[in-house]
């Protein structure tokens, strides 16, 4: 496997220009919703609202104001996290979701049959159906570009280098330096998803945030969906055993005296 590649997104220099969103759509030939004819969302400058099958990049706008001109406006370009332990890949029943030689997670659109298990499995709400293909889609970290030595379209288009692409190990070093710089300036900056010992084995798209992850729409402790499997399965088996036993006991062939009492309904 080649070196693990990914994104480091420094939200402190994001200017919310959405060039990443457009560059992504242009490269991946994703349609605009309803052909581009839409209504104003009223949610700050965010009119695409979320990541989904035709928005593989999304810029979030968070207005935090105490009064007129008194506050801050956070912006963050969000994308698939390319989790080292990926829930979508885990549950995919067709084998459409694979891990590439760049340690990225890619949905093969020609294999996916649109069962949508991956959508519910992703802790970040990244994946959705692309209505054109009828399959689940998300950021591929521009797998096609990576294979020929190009950087992904979004980071290439990002004018302020808020989105940085590179080898994960190197990005982590860079990110830690930036956090130290911000902390020395009195900014409460933290990395999200940069820790290989953290949730999901670390995220190959990680972020520098200046507020709690929830503020940016990110779960604090993302988990694999299968963490629930043993417990849920075990309890199901237990209840199956109980009900099975009850059924065998209730429906078994009766001795004559019981039968003469006219049914066993009052057990």
């Amino acid at each position: 496997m080649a070196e693990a590649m990914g994104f480091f997104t420094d939200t402190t220099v994001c200017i919310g220009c959405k060039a990443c969103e457009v560059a992504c759509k242009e490269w991946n030939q994703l349609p605009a919703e309803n052909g581009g004819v839409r209504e104003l969302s009223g949610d700050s400058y965010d009119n695409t609202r979320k990541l989904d099958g035709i928005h593989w990049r999304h810029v979030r706008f968070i207005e935090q104001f105490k009064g007129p001109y008194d506050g801050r406006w956070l912006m963050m370009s969000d994308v698939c996290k390319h989790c080292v332990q990926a829930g979508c890949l885990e549950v995919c029943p067709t084998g459409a979701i694979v891990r590439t030689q760049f340690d990225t997670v890619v949905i093969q659109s020609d294999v996916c049959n649109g069962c949508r298990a991956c959508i519910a499995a992703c802790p970040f709400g990244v994946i959705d159906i692309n209505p054109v293909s009828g399959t689940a889609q998300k950021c591929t970290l521009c797998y096609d570009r990576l294979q020929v030595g190009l950087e992904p379209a979004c980071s290439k288009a990002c004018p302020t280098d808020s989105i940085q692409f590179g080898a994960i190990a190197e990005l982590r070093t860079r990110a830690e330096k930036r956090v130290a710089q911000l902390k020395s300036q009195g900014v409460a900056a933290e990395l999200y998803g940069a820790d290989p010992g953290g949730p999901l084995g670390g995220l190959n798209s990680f972020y520098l945030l200046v507020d709690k992850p929830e503020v940016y729409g990110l779960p604090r402790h993302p988990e694999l969906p299968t963490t629930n499997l043993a417990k849920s399965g075990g309890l199901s088996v237990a209840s199956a055993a109980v009900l099975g036993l009850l059924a065998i006991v209730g429906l078994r062939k009766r001795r004559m005296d019981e039968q003469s009492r006219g049914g066993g309904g009052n057990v």
Partner: protein
Amino acid sequence: MSDTFFSGAPHWAWLIILYFFVGGIAGGGSLLAAIVDWFGAPEDRPVARTGYNVAAVGAIISGALLTIDLGRPLRFWHMLFQSANFPTLMFKGWSPISFGAWGIFLFGLFSVLTALGGMAEEGRLHNPALRAVGGAVRGTLAKVVGGVAGLLGLFIAGYTGVLLSVTNRPIWADGPWLGALFLASGVSTGAATLILLAPGRGATEQSLARLSAFDTKALVVELLVLVLFVASLGAVNRVWLSFWGLVLLVGVGFGILAPLRMHAQRRSLAGAARLVLLGGFLLRLATIFASEGIERYRVAAGM
């Protein structure tokens, strides 16, 4: 706030709800049929045959619902075989949707075989090929095939809940009881279906009374599991402060409490059974849509 609120809804809607409902009935019916077949009296035979038929028809409907629901229905087989390496099998033992696909496939196979056997026994098969297949499934083989179908039915009734739990969605993944709950509901609705359909195949009063007595127990188990399920959700229960919470309440009231009361008062078996079916449907409706309907992030921000 639960981290599940940051995930996206998989748009599992009416087709999937119907599948969960029909699959549960088929699975429950199959289980009860097999138990009657193995442990019951000879006069319970119509109940068993009804159960196997319900299982077979239910399995076929389930398969159809699941396939139609796919974004690309013609690729349904990608869940069973590796599309690039056909006929290598596609199976993930840790993914409910993967082993569930196999479960549904095998359940369909065994329940249809069993049903064909039953129909051959009654002489109701006219197609020579079907008659040949049905004729082969008899005696001990029929019992074994029926038994497997029953066990698979138990699986089908329960795995759908596990499937929901093995996600990152609100409600579904917030507690571990959904598999058990759906299983109990599947068995209770399966029993209710048999109560409604078996008389048409000549089931006796006694058979029906026993089924009804069992259904009471199943409903009690279901109610117990439901309480445990709701308790396990903790703060997430705020989600029920919605239309779907009302639906759940109606489902519990009409689908569990009312039938229990009717059983206790020895009132109409059929009426109680119909209510159980309604309750089973509303239970799935509420649990699916309550989670599906959450507008992610926005609710999260408000929580």
